[in-house]
């Protein structure tokens, strides 16, 4: 079944650690996105990609980085985690060019940095 997967679902990690949040989709979508969302709050776009080897920063400044080496994979990396990075990170994808379609979101990674 076509879907979008995020791992881990929950992560508690110490300050200064390097972490990578995984996101994979099996729908063949070229466009992928990372959003940051604090509990009960709005979604903020932090990174997006229009295809392989394409990455752009979103509206919200973030210390994280992303890569897009394969169409289906869009991991997000924090080189040195800080308590201010504590949040939920949501990955999403959408169909390629043409008519704008709805985004499909993964289940998210809830990150806590202690």
């Amino acid at each position: 079944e076509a879907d979008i997967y995020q791992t881990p679902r929950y992560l508690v990690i110490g300050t200064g650690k390097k972490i990578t949040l995984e996101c994979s989709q099996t729908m063949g979508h070229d466009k992928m996105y990372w959003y940051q969302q604090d509990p009960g709050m709005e979604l903020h776009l932090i990174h997006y990609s229009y295809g392989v080897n394409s990455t752009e920063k979103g509206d919200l400044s973030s210390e994280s980085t992303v890569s897009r080496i394969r169409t289906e994979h869009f991991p997000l990396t924090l080189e040195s985690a800080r308590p201010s990075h504590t949040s939920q990170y949501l990955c999403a994808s959408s169909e390629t060019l043409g008519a704008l379609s709805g985004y499909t979101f993964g289940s998210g990674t809830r990150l806590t940095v202690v």
Partner: protein
Amino acid sequence: GQQVMQIPQYQHVQEGEDFTTYCNSSTTLSNIQWYKQRPGGHPVFLIQLVKSGEVKKQKRLTFQFGEAKKNSSLHITATQTTDVGTYFCAESSYSGAGSYQLTFGKGTKLSVIP
């Protein structure tokens, strides 16, 4: 992207009552999407509106796009406890190379009292 304003921020209704959330913009929107996020969950795409004055229905949900394409509404008839969650509108803006970005409103959090 543009910022869409959503009102109200919170709404508490008795089960069986109707509920409406509004999404407003100072500029003309190319299209608008609506999402629902259950507590602890991820946003799920509900619908996209493109045409001026468009009205679409999904069971008890009615979505409307204003004639001037500057506002949109989501109306739920006879709410049920399963309607609990946060409803987000999102507007798309052209970001070049034939692609669009979504910018989300702050959402309306709906509580349904049994």
